[in-house]
């Protein structure tokens, strides 16, 4: 099959690029190694839409962060993705005022509005900062978004606009051919005039497949605690400590889905490592109380880890100098989520121009507002009409997050179908609550099996994990 453009990697970068490219008269294919998009860094980060004051002025990071922040909110609204512009605070003790002023100075150069607050003003925004916090840098344009839902939203919209997504398709070879590239993925071959490398942690190795610029990557893991949604009432904004060389530091933040996170740590490691360590979790236990007065580690419902991929000190974005029509958006570490829509805007324009493609006349921009029980509870009459038509609207499958069978069925049949328990979870929150899918996991598997007509044994948890099942009395 021949395409105009192939995108490698379905994280936030790849899906955003797909979304933007499908606005042009182009045949675009996205190849993703995992069984769903948003399965790597994009599903395990802080979900912060950064304001951009801390990036070194003049870098791609600064440019795309600031522009991304202005575009992302609109995207999130159009795609019906949970988001909240709740602002952020960098908090400091008496001796930290200088550090805050330095951040503010950088922000001014990049065009980011911030304000330095004293102790009292800080507490009007966040009453629960640690007792010795004397100052803070307030950035009203910062906020939170559901990172995986944003990527899924981009993919869904792109598919409605004619894009194609192939999952379980790890790219293993790329070969230059006349007027383009031949890409091997999941045992199949695809040809395209242009290729975009959005392979995240594998960005550098994918470059090597085709002989584009060689880069060395550094990997840095970040571990988190996720707190029960009962803690949400104690966190009103994103709370950062003063940044250090290792990064933005350990934050306390609400999530767009209504939980709270503490994290991330910064542990140098190897590609692929997302296993949390006891030391690193202990570091969270020690550091969170330094900025936050109401730590509630006993309300933890889950730990998770994400992997940052760094190439030098900045993002690598644009066409390869060695391989014509081979584009890259790699080394996209923080603030990559925030930057994604702006990166995709620029890159898609550049690619479309190179390929001589025009914008389509009619495209889908706004996805229909998803029906959820939470929303329908505000209008009991509509809910009861739905239940009468389809009893699945009255059947709660995930008890903790109150997700109905109908919502799960809808996710399974969405433009980019959810085919694993984790994929359903990312779209509906079934299994994300305090019991962590203990009860609903097996039910979700049954529903996937029934809806997609695949045997129960073949339904996966996600990332290829089989839910091992041995018939009782059949264990050898």
């Amino acid at each position, binding site marked *: 099959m021949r395409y105009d453009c192939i995108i490698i990697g379905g994280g936030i970068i790849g899906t955003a690029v797909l979304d933007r490219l499908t606005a042009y008269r182009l045949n675009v294919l996205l190849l993703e190694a995992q069984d769903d998009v948003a399965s790597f860094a994009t599903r395990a980060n802080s979900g912060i839409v950064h304001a951009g004051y801390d990036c070194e002025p003049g870098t791609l990071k600064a440019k795309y962060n600031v522009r991304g922040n202005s575009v992302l909110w609109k995207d999130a609204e159009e795609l019906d993705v949970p988001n909240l512009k709740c602002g952020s605070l960098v908090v400091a003790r008496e001796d930290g005022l200088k550090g805050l002023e330095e951040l503010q100075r950088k922000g001014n150069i990049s065009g980011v509005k911030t304000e330095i607050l004293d102790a009292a003003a800080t507490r009007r925004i966040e009453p629960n900062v640690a007792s010795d916090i004397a100052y803070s840098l307030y950035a009203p344009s910062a906020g939170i978004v559901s990172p995986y839902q944003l990527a899924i939203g981009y993919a869904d919209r792109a598919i409605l606009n004619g894009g194609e997504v192939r999952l379980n398709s790890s790219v293993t070879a790329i070969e230059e051919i006349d007027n383009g590239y031949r890409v091997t993925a999941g045992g199949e071959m695809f040809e395209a005039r242009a290729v975009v490398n959005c392979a995240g942690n594998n960005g550098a190795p994918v470059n090597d497949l085709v002989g584009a610029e060689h880069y060395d990557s550094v990997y840095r893991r970040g571990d988190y605690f996720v707190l029960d949604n009962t803690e949400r009432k104690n966190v009103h904004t994103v709370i950062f400590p003063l940044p250090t060389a290792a990064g933005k530091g350990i934050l306390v933040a609400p999530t767009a889905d209504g939980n709270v996170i503490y994290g991330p740590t910064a542990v140098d490691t190897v590609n692929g490592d997302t296993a949390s360590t006891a030391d690193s*979790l202990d570091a969270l236990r020690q550091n969170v109380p330094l900025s936050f007065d109401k730590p509630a580690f006993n309300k933890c419902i889950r730990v*998770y880890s994400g992997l940052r991929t760094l190439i030098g000190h900045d993002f690598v974005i644009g066409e390869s100098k060695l391989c014509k029509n081979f584009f890259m958006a790699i080394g996209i570490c923080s603030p990559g989520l925030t930057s994604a829509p702006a990166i995709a805007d620029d890159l898609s324009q550049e690619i479309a121009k190179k390929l001589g493609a025009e914008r389509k006349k009619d495209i889908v921009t706004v996805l229909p507002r998803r029906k959820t029980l939470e929303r329908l509870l505000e209008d009991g009459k509509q809910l009861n009409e739905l*239940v009468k038509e389809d009893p699945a609207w009255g059947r709660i499958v995930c008890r903790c997050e109150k997700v109905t069978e109908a919502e799960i069925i809808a996710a399974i049949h969405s433009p980019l179908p959810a085919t694993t328990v984790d994929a359903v979870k990312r779209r509906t929150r079934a299994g994300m609550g305090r*019991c962590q899918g203990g009860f609903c996991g097996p039910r979700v598997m049954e529903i996937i099996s029934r809806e997609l007509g695949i045997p129960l044994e073949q339904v996966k948890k996600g*990332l290829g994990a089989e839910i091992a*099942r*041995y018939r009782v009395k059949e264990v050898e």
Partner: protein
Amino acid sequence: MMNDFDVVVIGGGPAGMAAALAANEQGARTLIVERDVRLGGILNQCIHQGFGLHYFGTEMTGPEYAERFRKRVAQQNIEVMLESMVLALDEDKTVTLLSPQRGLMKIKAGAVVLAMGCRERTAGAIALAGTRPAGIYTAGMAQKICNIDGYLVGKEVVILGSGDIGLIMARRMTTEGAKVKLVLELMPYSSGLKRNIVQCLDDYDIPIMYSHTVTRVEGSPRLTGLYYAPVGKDRKPVLAEEKYIPCDTLLLSVGLIPENDLLSGMDIRMSPVTGGATVDQNRMTTVGGVFSCGNVLHVHDLVDNVSREAETAGKNAALWALGSHNEQPECVNVTASDGVRYALPQRISAKEGKIRLFFRVGNVYKNGRLSVVSGGKEIAFRNFRVLAPGEMGSIDVDAAAIEGDVNVRLQL
């Protein structure tokens, strides 16, 4: 506004069924709301023997115990709504539920009995370090998959925690052909019943290591093994002594949490120790007309106690609903100290009659005196040889002897 029912019972496990029967016996129009497709609660998956010795005088399995109550409920004029999940409870005792048959419904009750049971602590709750592989289950989940769905979750098993469900599953997985290699318990003692240690571990030569915990898990996408280590006095693992054990399954039996999320919007006094509401001897909470019983009130190890407690709650809920002038009664407080973690009820209003106080201790204690003190005087005591956290104890006091707040304590 007219009440739709005198008593609405939320949850149809053993607590809910016993409460409904007792309320019905007082002549109250009674409804049970249960989110599952059948009554019986957790008992439906407990197919081992060990239920009912105290209540029925004969030992039976969980489903048999549940069946006896289901039959009684069916014979009475008690309304049952199945597949109906209660989403909200208001202080005016309006119950909001959702079901595939009825849609969203609001039901006004004269009195409400909370009988929602408990849920298990998960791997997330104990912040297990390492990968996040398939193959980690709470013991109750593995029990449900085994006994209700008919599948085993793995072949080489390590169990963390020695709660009763974990112990029962050690035996169950073994008799089904899996190899249970090791049970690890953080504390120096088990949180389960003595009889379960003997019948489920010792009888099958399954080793248990006290004062040990899992330090991290390995494998992706499926669990391939885990590291464990002894813990020091501060309960922190001594990483220098970490050991590895290969396994494909980790079962967690690390605690049960009363399922009280429905109360989050209500001004009801909770106990930080039990995780349940605080109640008086009638099992009424600080919100008049709202009662609580069974595992949602405090975690029980014997269903017989659950049924009895629920009868108290159900009967008094009916009296409240049918009564004409209802007020929160004057109460004395019941506190626990000196080795006793909690005592329940937490309040007593009765002026006469026998009151049974239930309690749990915070450690293993040997050869001492359990003492109940009120108004500076000991009003009840019991000498004991052993008290363990895994076994709920009880002691009776004479309400007439109470003069001021009551304290339950140990003297060693």
